[in-house]
């Protein structure tokens, strides 16, 4: 008999799960108490969710209006525009109809009764259908359409008093529509009263206010019960900083699907697999801690305080929390996949995330790998792993903690690349931007040192020396190419030293590491000068302000990068192990890609 799945609720989460499971050959029954959802309005779909929906065929015939920019204004800070969103706006009811049509096509049976003999039970009944766990995590969301025009998504936080640790921020979003209609949504957490008339603004309302409960109180423990799994809003999977629930609804549905497909005949195993996957997928937003409310408030204070800081640490931090993206490698260019690296890099990620997730969920968000593209992103741990293959074999997983340490230390170093003209806020209270820079930096660097001391004690001195060198270079305002050279040189050198005793090989690998750092920085300059998004999310002005620019012009930076790239190729030819040479070159190619893209001269 085909194992059966019973899904309660046919909103986005329930429908996506039902369709995906039925297509995998499972018998799926859905019961839906078609509650009155009020007037339709637009929904923001983020990039990964859009990709998932597209691959399922959900977007066919749907009006998908791409949005690539989001303007964020936190508290009273100056607005900042994040680009490269890759998302879209779609109509809520149209999305729902398409999903329901796909359910019918896939053979999902709509039933009205209780499950009979189903193996797996998925609950997707939406927010407000389970007891709330905390007043801080529940609230209401309001949506209304207006006559008006907007070019981009606007996200605005509103809070009456930043200094009251118990006051919760509210988030207002404006979604650009078409035909002169835009949608405004407001998410209010905590128990304070809200007057929907506030949604009036300068625009003429088109539709009525649509309101519903919102629940951000996710924890993996609450998402799995004795014989069920919860997905989407009922699991409390709403981003507390933006009110976005659709992305998490679809993501959790797909996690449930994968867990059930892996354990078709064993619901208990499927539930525990689901619980585990949730724990790593949603790291950072929702850590269960005695300090949860204060921590939430802290994250928000940092977001607000650093809203005008355009350094890589805070820009990446904002994107990680407000958008579904981690630091995700320092480049969008991907290396060719080499499967032998996957176990090592997966272990690296696990160590890095588990080292910080309980104390600093905010930082864990930065480290969370957004795709399952392990082994492809350009990141320092990959350089380290590539250097480890100088042994002739795959990287030794025993050194994964050192790789994690390198990632943590790189992030810590980015935190310390502070701007020249930071001014503390007026009046009393903590300077959150400054405090976070110092605390997060110290925390990341000391955790990194601890990992090295435990996994490779012989490297402790070299590791401390590396940090000392980076600090001294920063203090003396050493040229930025040298700083980034040193940043990338260490992972390469230490990897080679752990892998081989041949000093000539170590020297070559170290030089390649240094070249990669230089090329990375030159590539940043080139991207910024071309007006494109840089990998560190810096603008040309921001780079100059922080002294992290080569200060070469566009043409000179391109030339210098191409020249370094050529020297890297020559150096790699001296490495005896072909795979090691290939991996290092792949890394170098990805780092230099902004300059060399498309005009590659083949060796």
């Amino acid at each position, binding site marked *: 008999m085909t194992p059966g799945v019973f899904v309660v609720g046919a909103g986005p989460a329930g429908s996506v799960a039902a369709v995906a499971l039925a297509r995998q050959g499972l018998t799926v029954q859905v019961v839906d108490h078609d509650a009155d959802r009020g007037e339709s309005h637009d929904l923001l779909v983020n990039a990964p969710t859009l990709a998932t929906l597209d691959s399922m065929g959900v977007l066919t015939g749907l009006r998908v209006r791409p949005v690539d920019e989001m303007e964020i204004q936190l508290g009273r800070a100056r607005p900042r525009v994040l680009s490269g969103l890759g998302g879209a706006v779609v109509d809520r009811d149209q999305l729902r109809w398409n999903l329901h049509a796909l359910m019918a096509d896939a053979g999902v049976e709509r039933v009205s009764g209780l499950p009979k003999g189903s193996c797996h039970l998925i609950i997707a009944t939406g927010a407000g259908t389970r007891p709330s766990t905390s007043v801080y995590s529940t609230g209401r969301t309001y949506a209304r359409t207006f006559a008006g025009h907007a070019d981009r998504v606007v996200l605005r936080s509103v809070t009456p008093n930043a200094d009251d640790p118990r006051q919760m921020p509210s988030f207002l979003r404006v979604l650009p529509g078409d035909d002169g209609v835009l949608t405004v949504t407001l998410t209010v957490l905590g128990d304070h009263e809200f007057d929907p008339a506030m949604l009036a603004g300068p625009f003429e309302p088109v539709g009525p206010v649509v309101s519903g409960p919102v629940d951000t109180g996710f924890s993996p423990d609450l998402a799995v019960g004795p014989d069920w799994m919860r997905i989407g809003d009922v699991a409390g999977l709403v981003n507390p900083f933006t009110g976005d629930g659709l992305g998490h609804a679809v993501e959790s549905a797909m996690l449930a699907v994968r867990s059930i497909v892996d354990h078709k005949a064993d619901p208990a195993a499927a539930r525990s697999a689901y619980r585990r996957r949730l724990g790593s997928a949603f790291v950072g937003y929702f850590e269960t801690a005695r*300090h949860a409310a204060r921590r939430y408030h802290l994250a928000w204070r940092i977001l607000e305080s650093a809203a005008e800081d355009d350094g890589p640490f805070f820009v990446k931090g904002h994107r990680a929390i407000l958008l579904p993206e981690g630091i995700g490698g320092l480049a969008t260019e991907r290396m060719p996949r080499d499967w032998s690296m996957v176990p090592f890099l997966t272990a690296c990620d696990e160590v890095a995330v588990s080292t910080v997730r309980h104390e600093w969920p905010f930082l864990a968000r930065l480290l969370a790998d957004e795709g399952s593209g392990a082994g492809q992103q350009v990141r320092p741990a990959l350089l380290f792993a590539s250097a480890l293959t100088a042994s002739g074999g795959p990287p030794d997983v025993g050194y994964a903690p050192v790789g994690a340490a390198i990632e943590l230390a790189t992030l810590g170093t980015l935190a310390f690349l502070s701007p020249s003209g930071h001014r503390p806020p007026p009046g009393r209270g903590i300077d959150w931007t400054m405090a976070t820079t110092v605390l997060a930096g110290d925390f990341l660097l000391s955790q990194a040192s601890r990992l090295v001391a435990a996994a490779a004690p012989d490297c402790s001195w070299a590791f401390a020396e590396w940090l000392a060198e980076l600090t*001294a270079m920063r203090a003396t305002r050493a040229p930025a190419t040298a700083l980034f050279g040193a940043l990338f040189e260490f992972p390469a050198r230490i990897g080679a030293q752990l892998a081989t005793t041949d000093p000539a090989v170590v020297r070559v690998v170290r030089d390649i590491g240094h070249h990669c750092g230089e090329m990375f920085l030159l590539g940043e300059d080139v991207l910024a000068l071309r007006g494109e998004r840089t990998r560190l999310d810096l603008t040309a002005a921001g780079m100059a302000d922080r002294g992290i620019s080569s200060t070469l012009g566009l043409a000179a930076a391109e030339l210098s990068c191409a020249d370094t790239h050529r020297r890297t190729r020559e150096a790699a030819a001296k490495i005896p192990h072909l795979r090691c040479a290939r991996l290092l070159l792949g890394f170098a190619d990805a780092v230099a890609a902004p300059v060399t893209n498309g005009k590659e001269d083949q060796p």
Partner: protein
Amino acid sequence: MSRPYEHRVTDRLNAAASELDESVRPLVSRLIDQPGKRLRSTLLAACVPGTGVDPAPLGALVELVHVASLLHDDIIDRAAVRRGLPAAHVVAGEERATLAGLACFALAGKLAADLGPGVSMAVSAAVAELSVGELLDVQRAFDTELSIEDYLELVTRKTGELFRLPCVLGALAAGADRATAAVLAEFGLELGVAFQIMDDCLDLRVGQDVDKPVGTDHQLGLFGAPTLFALRVDEDGSLRRTLLSSSFGAHDMPGVRSMVLDRGGFASATHLARERHANALVILNRLEDEDLRASLRTVGMAMWQDVT
């Protein structure tokens, strides 16, 4: 070895600091020249009596970690004065002070690695705990309902850990057995907690000669043990209102002090501190080595007289 211990620690600190880049060295040197109470190196030396171990290298190491943490603390706390001098970030700017602290942590990492893998492990673990403690400390800013339990957690991680470190390192250097090492570590932690509670009482001292300005923690919304105890019996809410006022400043401190006094905040905090201090001394009774017990008891008592 005729030169006194304290001077040998200073010599080693100066030697270590000479490795620093000159752009940050003066900020570190001035803290070495104004040594403070040197509690941590004293504690360390008290852990190795009669073993023939020279405590100076480790003593310098724990003081260097302390200097690094002071440089960074003063930035976080926006403290204007340190050891009677303008704080480093006031003199040289926040970025330079941040880098000076960072350089000290890195230098401490190198010294630790020279002294063996156990030392590296202990130092980096303590610094990691310290930064978490600091995080817990700032994230509760303006929380007038912070429970004593949560307060004790942050104090344990913020101050307790840095008192525990010298004891852990001392035990390591002396080659102490596991049981002894555990007792020493516990003693250090407990002593640190007691010490921090008393230090919180000092933040409320008015018009007395202390080496840091009064009321800075309150200014930041970080209320210490006496105030937290007083807030629990703040029936009419007047203390809370004063503390949360946006115009709160040094001029409010005498009023806060008398309100905390009226509500029994000092008495409760002092009681708690005494309890933890007594507890630290009781822990020492589990030590079999009488010399060690006596040496630590002496230090534990002397340190206490300084703050009470």
